């Protein structure tokens, strides 16, 4: 059974195996397929048009399924690997062990933002950025320079207290748990973390940085935490709604999975806490 652990609790061996599996997916070309898929959705999901992966109710179930697919790919490389999550309310500085060279490597250098150390640095030769929006083929970060600070636990708790999953107009203007977690309204949780990391994480090709998965694994855990706090609240909308994935509609690109299928994560994985 897959248990997703807090990244700060991983052993040295668990970190090494996780990174090894990432590098193997990258080498085989399968990694970049995930970058391409994410980019395609983020560019086509619009507030006034059809929207599936982002700025819509299905932001959470879409990313849950996306991460499950990715985790399964990792497990084909190494069955012992699970996606860790990054609780950015706790590990909130560039000196966190997450950014050490034995795990994801650190921030980029001033100026061009190039990550200079660790196994994802350009010099390692194993992490070329192929699916990109500009010419630069190397991983970039600017930890903590784009956003004032990572969200606090108090800010997270305030969002988790919101009882309504989502609301009309079902987009970036909604006042709802989903939109406040996604970050287009209110304190700004998920979006702000992308900006805080900087580099490719601020772009449509954000999965080029492996921290994408750890960030979204924590966002996914916050959805589960919200469900536990609000057992009487459910996914909305439940009836057909133009341009939006309702509870029993299938989601692209899989076309065989609905938000209803994704509400319970426990058939796929559990969390360490």
């Amino acid at each position, binding site marked *: 059974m897959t248990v997703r652990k807090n990244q700060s609790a991983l052993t040295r061996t668990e970190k090494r195996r996780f990174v090894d599996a990432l590098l193997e997916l990258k080498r085989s070309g399968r990694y970049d397929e995930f970058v391409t898929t994410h980019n395609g959705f983020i560019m086509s999901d619009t507030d006034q048009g059809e929207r599936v992966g982002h700025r819509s109710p299905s932001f959470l179930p879409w990313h849950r399924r996306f991460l499950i697919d990715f985790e399964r790919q990792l497990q084909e490389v190494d069955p012992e690997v699970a996606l860790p999550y990054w609780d950015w309310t706790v590990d909130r500085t560039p000196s966190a062990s997450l950014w050490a060279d034995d795990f994801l490597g650190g921030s980029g250098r001033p100026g061009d933002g190039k990550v200079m150390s660790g196994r994802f640095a350009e010099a390692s030769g194993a992490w070329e950025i192929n699916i990109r929006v*500009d010419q630069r083929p190397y991983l970039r970060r600017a930890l903590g320079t784009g956003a004032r600070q990572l969200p606090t636990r108090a800010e997270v708790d305030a969002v988790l207290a919101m009882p309504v999953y989502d609301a009309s107009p079902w987009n970036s203007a909604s006042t709802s748990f989903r939109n406040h977690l996604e970050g287009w309204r209110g304190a700004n949780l998920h979006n702000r973390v992308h900006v805080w990391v900087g580099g490719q994480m601020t772009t449509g090709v*954000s999965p080029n940085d492996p921290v994408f998965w750890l960030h979204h694994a924590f966002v996914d855990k916050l959805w589960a935490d919200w469900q536990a706090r609000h057992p009487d609240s459910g996914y909305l909308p439940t009836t057909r709604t133009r341009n939006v994935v309702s509870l029993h509609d299938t989601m692209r690109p899989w076309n065989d999975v609905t938000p209803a299928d994704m509400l319970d994560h426990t058939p796929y994985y559990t969390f360490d806490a």
Partner: protein
Amino acid sequence: MPEISRRRVLGMSAGTFAGLAVAATAAVNATAAKAAPSERQGSQGSGLEAFDEVYQGRRIQGAPTRGAGSHGGHGGGHGSGHGGGHGGQAHDFGYAVHLDGDELHIMRNADGTWISVVNHYETFATPRQLARAAVTELHGADLVPLVLTSA
């Protein structure tokens, strides 16, 4: 291996290539429009002014498009449940931004703020601010017009 603009490629979210002919036509239109930006000053659309300036050594231009702010490329009729992507249809938010002549993919949020492909999780009040932020983020690098290489 046809090169088409980023926004056209990325509109094909699920990798479908239907609509390539549409994209090619649009690329021609975009080229024509770029050649005569002055004609479009003051046209209807987003209600925003055109701009053309050099910022940190990069030429940034913005102008309303002929689409008049409608989602011209995003024809209706998509049920949420059906597959196949967007068929190559792009979105027209009534405004286009170019950076050294390359189109910067931009998107308008429901509250009127803007995001771009290089700042996709941070909103900006105007396209000019968005273009300037892209210049800073790019640090001299050129945008990559995506090339279709595989399905």
